[in-house]
């Protein structure tokens, strides 16, 4: 039966620049400045090693459950590196590399993971939100910040991260829809790492790509090889420019893979094969970047070693500092801090009663 057609955007771009061997598609090479590329390397090394250390500390019982980033470093560094200092970063819970790029204190992250609220501290000058654990809910905070930026006519943008699983939550929908209709300066970065805990991407949604979900909101959507830092950065730079220029939001789908456990409480053998993991190990972003940098003569063995040593040093120092801080954080009454600007009277009574109780306990 013949019908009229309404044209709607029907194509999702997919960008890939580096192949699995780190060979670049010359035509697409964005030719980024050497110093930037070198910084990509430094921060990817640091993030990788920091993540490994956290995992070790967790296995030793020194920190609690956390969400490793192994394999997703390019997706994070490639995107976050498009932000200016004044821009806002709104993370989910698996963005250690992005936080490190933005200058987060490694010791704070250690402390947070050791179970201390103090580790969640955000320094005054940093336009970064604390990590958000309820999936997808942070998207709305990014949208609110973007609205405020637009209202204040500031030259800032917002970038927010979330996973493939997050796209099934209502908050994803409500956030992208409003950002679209209000034309807000925000970049939505979906790290499609193929799983939401045990749930594979294909069972999460029937849409062929996550990028195409953008069409539901009348905004551009693009898919990119998330383990290819050049491609990720290229796509993100475009989106950031669009946002900065008043062109509104973009949804970026970084196709990547979580090489490690979901969190340290997870057993991936329940839901995926080693073979699959091995396949993705081959596409792992750090080695790919290293191959490319060596080809371009930006990196040699010595540089790699120096980046590795510097990372190890920073991590060691941070953990040492963290242990000292933990030794000092002995006052249980600190849990009453920062509830509100002023502690309400009845809560204060509870605090005082607890203080008296502690005193008798110590007296015993």
């Amino acid at each position, binding site marked *: 039966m013949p019908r009229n057609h309404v044209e709607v955007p029907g194509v999702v771009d997919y960008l890939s620049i580096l192949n699995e061997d780190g060979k670049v598609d010359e035509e697409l090479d964005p030719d980024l400045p050497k110093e930037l590329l070198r910084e990509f390397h430094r921060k990817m090394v640091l993030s990788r090693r920091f993540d490994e250390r956290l995992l070790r500390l967790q296995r030793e019982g020194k920190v609690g459950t956390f969400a490793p980033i192994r394999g997703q470093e390019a997706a994070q560094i490639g995107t976050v590196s498009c932000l200016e200092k004044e821009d*806002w970063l709104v993370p989910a819970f698996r963005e250690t590399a992005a936080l490190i790029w933005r200058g987060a204190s490694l010791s704070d992250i250690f402390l947070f993971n050791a179970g201390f*609220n*103090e580790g*969640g*501290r*955000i*320094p*005054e000058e940093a336009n970064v*939100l*604390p990590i*958000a654990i*309820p999936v997808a*809910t942070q*998207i*709305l*905070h*990014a*949208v*609110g*910040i*973007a*609205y*405020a*930026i*637009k*209202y*204040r006519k500031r030259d800032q943008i917002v970038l927010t991260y979330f996973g493939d699983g997050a796209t099934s939550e*209502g*908050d994803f929908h*409500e*956030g992208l*829809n*409003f950002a679209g*209709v209000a034309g807000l300066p925000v970049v939505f970065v979906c790290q499609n790492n193929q799983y939401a805990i045990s749930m594979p991407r294909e069972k999460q949604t029937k849409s062929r790509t996550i990028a195409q979900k953008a069409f539901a909101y009348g905004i551009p959507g693009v898919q990119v090889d998330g383990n290819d830092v050049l491609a990720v950065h290229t796509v993100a730079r475009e989106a950031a420019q669009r946002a900065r220029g008043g062109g509104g939001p973009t949804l970026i789908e970084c196709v990547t893979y979580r090489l490690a456990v979901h969190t340290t409480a997870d057993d991936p053998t329940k839901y995926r094969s080693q073979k699959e993991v091995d396949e993705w190990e081959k596409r792992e972003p750090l080695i790919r970047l290293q191959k490319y940098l060596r080809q371009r003569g930006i990196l040699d063995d010595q540089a790699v070693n120096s980046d590795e040593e510097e990372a190890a040093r920073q991590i060691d120092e941070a953990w040492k500092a963290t242990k000292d801080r933990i030794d000092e954080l002995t006052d249980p009454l600190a849990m009453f*801090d*920062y*509830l*509100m*600007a002023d502690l*309400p*009277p*009845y*809560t204060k009574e509870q605090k005082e009663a607890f203080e008296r109780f502690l005193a008798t306990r110590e007296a015993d």
Partner: protein
Amino acid sequence: MPNLTMIEAIRMALRQEMRNDDSVVILGEDVGVDGGVFRVTDGLLDEFGPERVIDTPLAESLIGGCSVGMAIYGLRPVCEMQFSGFSYLGFHQIESHASRFRRRSQGRFQIPMVVRMPYGAGVRALEHHSESKEIYYAHTPGLKMVIPSGPRKARALLLAAIRDPDPVIFFEPKAVYRAFREEVPDREEVFPIGESEIVREGKDLTMIAYGAMLHRAMEAAELLDKEDGVGAEVIDLLTISPLDDSKFCESARKTGHVVIVHEAPRSFGAAAEIMARLIEKSFYYLEAPIERVTGFDIHIPYFAREQEYLPSRDRIVSAARRTLEK
């Protein structure tokens, strides 16, 4: 002094504070062009423009979560849930974020947002439009929960709420919206959050109420005075959380008899916490069991029977007599 309905008084607070402080913005469903389904925000779009009076898409979680983001940036969003019965669609943004950002960021971010919403029965509305579930918010640490009972206090408390550095849930008794007028001073008047008020003095009985039910308590007090010669002290809570237990505990120490009135379901309602505080702080002065006159532990019936569900003057009087007889 203008003589205003609660709707007008709330609008006055919004308008004055928006003139005062350009970080105040309003957002919600139909708050702009329509002026709100109860006309609370009528005229504000014209004065302040669509960037400050924001008609959002139909999405309560967006309204809550976007307000959190705005507050993080330094704005003072006053968002509206069209009815408290629909606020649950955005409840997680309030519970998990609005109430926690100060804590989570260790003081870097504060969330000076207000969530306004009409609550309560009495206007012959549809299902979900007559709810009184202040407990969901009052039990959540990090939130303040305010329920004014008349125009003047509504204005003064809303000003306090907007200026408060922490998130305030602001329930507006829709049965009171247009029920009566009060003189509301043009000059700025702020009433502190966290303080209750003795609105009628008495030495025989303490009656505690808030929102629309305050007026029923007052009617009951008058009747008790006239018919029984009983002097009821009536306390308007005004803030549910943090609960001001000083005034009602003191009053109970004087009277020994207490009646608590609210329209929310009884079990696990606000009256229970008030009773707990009375036990903790005035136990030895209580002369008889405290009486609760509340909504029943059922869903409020559709409007043909809503008045039977609501605490009536006579139910309050009868409870008062019961406790006084003991």
